């Protein structure tokens, strides 16, 4: 044993020979900020998801029919794009501390349009029920956000704009258990916090901020973009221009229209997302979900969306009705009401005028509806007693001054009428939009922001584009968007007819209108508008 023990130190010495310090060398440093404070960037530099050269990106898009279509609208990429994944601190709908994630897209390459200090586009995505929505994930075409990620990258980043696109609190890796949907205060804070975090990251990911800030977004994102412009303006922060696209800006007017029977496509999804959002923020919408929802849907609906299950799964499981928001049996007027009230309720269940939209509205009614007649009636009685200035008839154009129904109060709180942007704005949409009605949103805002309205914007600052309209003249700056939209709309109808549709493809156009037909053209029109603002040095 003597030998063995005597050898032990030698063995130990040998073991240590040639062993420098152990441990892990990350080949660089990452700063971690777990404070969770508003606008804090959790990991700096943020994760680079991938880096596509301009030609890689073009090749990737060229590999699919959708991608080819996108290239045709957005143009050939001039820049490569580095996709980064940012994780930032923000707040929820009740001001509670939480976190969000999103994309930071940085143009790369040698083209003059891609180098040096670049303008930032702060982009707000549209409504999604997919909890895993991650607009930074350009690598996974099965992610629900892939299409929007590619669109934004092609329209903006590949043309030289830095893009900041939050997924919003409540999505992807956010700890928030719900999404503060169309909560103007929260969503503008979420956007501003993502922007702050992205600006912190930029020096570490090879991006330089030119100081020019553009804000855009589609659908829900149109509302978010406008709310964010308003919030930054109120904070005295610089906004170069904004382009809200197809958004429900006059939210209270839109929802009043829906309750009056003009049920929009997608209403059975929007209703629970809105109701949950406002219940979390204000706490006074209901005591029990059955106060609003029919018993077939009331259980668990407050935690249903966003979901890890696909929408089709939720529909097939009966968690939500496909389109029936309201009962096809009219609500019963309260005892003692004038006879005219019951007649009105009958006439809007469902409405039969205007004839062109009657089939769309009829879809919103059924025998197994989402919302109870009691809830609809309470809403309508308040809408009649304290009418919106734009629905059902135009008076002031502004929200009701003192709604008493708590739902209507919540919609008024998040309605974007009543302010005036001091920087250029483009509002884009399509007048046939079956989901976010053009007339009570884009048209209404445009009217409020034009002389002789007291809220009129400065001369030349307001631009409005209806992609579903005729080219006005040879110098129409939006001719390409209008022609492109008309072509896609026609080919969508033709494809439906070829597949056996007997309605001339009208139904297929309605289904595709808001989610597929309008977005690329309005998004690329927004880019053109931003480039024009830059070129004009506005």
């Amino acid at each position, binding site marked *: *044993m003597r*030998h*063995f023990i005597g*050898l032990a130190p030698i*063995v130990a010495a*040998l*073991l240590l*020979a*040639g*062993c*420098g*310090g*152990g*441990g*892990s*060398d*990350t*080949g*660089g*440093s*990452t700063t*971690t900020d777990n404070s969770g404070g508003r606008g804090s960037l*959790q*990991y700096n*530099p*943020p*994760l*680079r*998801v*991938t880096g*596509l*050269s301009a030609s*890689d990106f073009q*090749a*990737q898009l060229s590999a699919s029919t959708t991608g080819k279509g996108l290239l045709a609208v957005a143009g050939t990429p001039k820049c490569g794009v580095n996709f*980064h*994944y940012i*994780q930032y601190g923000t707040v929820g709908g009740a001001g509670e501390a939480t976190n969000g994630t999103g994309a930071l897209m940085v143009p790369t390459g040698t083209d003059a349009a891609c180098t040096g200090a670049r303008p930032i586009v702060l982009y707000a995505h549209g409504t999604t029920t997919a909890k895993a929505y991650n607009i*930074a*994930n350009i*690598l*996974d075409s*099965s992610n629900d956000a892939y299409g929007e990620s590619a669109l934004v990258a092609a329209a903006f980043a590949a043309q030289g704009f830095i893009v900041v696109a939050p997924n919003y609190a409540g999505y992807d890796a956010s700890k928030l258990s719900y999404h503060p949907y169309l909560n103007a205060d929260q969503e503008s804070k979420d956007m501003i916090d993502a922007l702050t975090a992205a600006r912190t990251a930029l020096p570490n990911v090879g991006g330089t901020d030119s100081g020019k800030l553009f804000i855009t977004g589609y659908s829900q994102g149109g509302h978010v973009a406008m709310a964010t412009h308003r919030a930054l303006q109120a904070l005295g922060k610089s906004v170069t221009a904004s382009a809200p696209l197809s958004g429900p800006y006059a939210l209270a007017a839109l929802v009043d229209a829906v309750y009056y029977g003009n049920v929009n496509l997608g209403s059975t999804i929007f209703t629970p997302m809105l109701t949950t959002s406002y219940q979390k923020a204000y706490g006074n919408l209901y005591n029990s979900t059955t106060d609003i929802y029919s018993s077939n849907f009331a259980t668990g609906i407050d935690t249903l969306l966003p979901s890890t299950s696909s929408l089709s799964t939720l529909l097939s499981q009966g968690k939500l009705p496909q389109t029936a928001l309201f009962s096809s049996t009219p609500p019963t007027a309260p005892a003692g009401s004038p006879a005219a009230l019951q007649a009105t309720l009958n006439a809007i269940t469902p409405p039969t005028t205007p004839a062109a939209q009657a089939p769309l509205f009829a879809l919103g009614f059924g025998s197994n509806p989402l919302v109870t007649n009691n809830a609809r009636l309470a809403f309508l009685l308040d809408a009649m007693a304290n009418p919106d200035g734009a629905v059902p008839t135009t008076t002031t154009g502004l929200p009701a001054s003192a709604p008493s129904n708590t739902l209507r109060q919540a919609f008024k709180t998040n309605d974007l009428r009543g302010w005036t942007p001091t920087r250029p704005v483009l509002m884009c949409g399509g007048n046939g939009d079956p989901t976010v009605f053009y007339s009570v949103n884009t048209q209404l805002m445009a009217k409020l922001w034009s002389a002789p309205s007291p809220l009129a914007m400065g001369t030349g600052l307001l631009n409005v584009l209806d992609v579903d309209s005729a080219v006005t003249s040879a110098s129409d700056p939006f001719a390409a968007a209008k022609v492109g939209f008309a072509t896609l709309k026609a080919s969508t109808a033709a494809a439906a007819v070829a597949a056996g549709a007997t309605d001339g493809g009208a139904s297929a156009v309605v289904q595709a209108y808001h989610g597929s037909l309008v977005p690329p053209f309005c998004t690329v029109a927004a880019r053109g508008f931003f480039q024009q603002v830059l070129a004009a040095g506005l």
Partner: protein
Amino acid sequence: MTFRLNPLALAFAPLLLGGTTAWAQDNIVRVGYTQVQPNSSASDATGPFLLQPNSGVSLTVKDQSTLFFSYARKLDDRLEVELAMGVPPTHDIAAKLNPAIVPGYIVSAYQGQTIAKIRQFAPTVFLNYSFGDSSSALRPFVGVGVNYTKFDKRSSTSIGNSLNGGPTDIQLSDSWGLAAQVGLEYRINDKWSLHGSVATARVKTTLTATTAGAARVMDITFHPVVLTMTAGYRF
């Protein structure tokens, strides 16, 4: 270095402590050259921004040579206990990307590139049994034992950081497993001998690569072939 208590190691303890001292010259130190062929097979990585269920992103651990040394103690004419070690070798880790899954521009930039380096420290205790007569110069032997592998030093290369998306922390879990060897000993004289062996061990680890909070994980199984040539000195 913290060794966890292991039942297999305990099983060898009586051998280490209680061996016979009947032989005058019962200690052997061997020093030589060893080549470690890890023959790794790694699962597809899982984690953020990787496709499911198969990401097509994996790796290979490359071969490495190093200085070998061991200490052995004779228990009797046929049995010895050997503690085998070496200067811990640092292996290159190469990206292994499935072109059917991973986009072409990523494959062309990273396929086969060294994305990380890992240093492994792998002491192994063998119980060796020698065949033939103790007086013969040439004696084959077989050994079974226990291997402990610790990946004590890991570094991500700049290419690895580029593939992973930023500075990357790499961790690999320790491995305990059975080991075996076969070899041949040639006795030059009472003091000196030459010794050649082929050894293997069961080594399994889980690699976690963390980049800006995103942890990507893969399981790696090694089917190592360790070729060793040594000179032994008996005392």
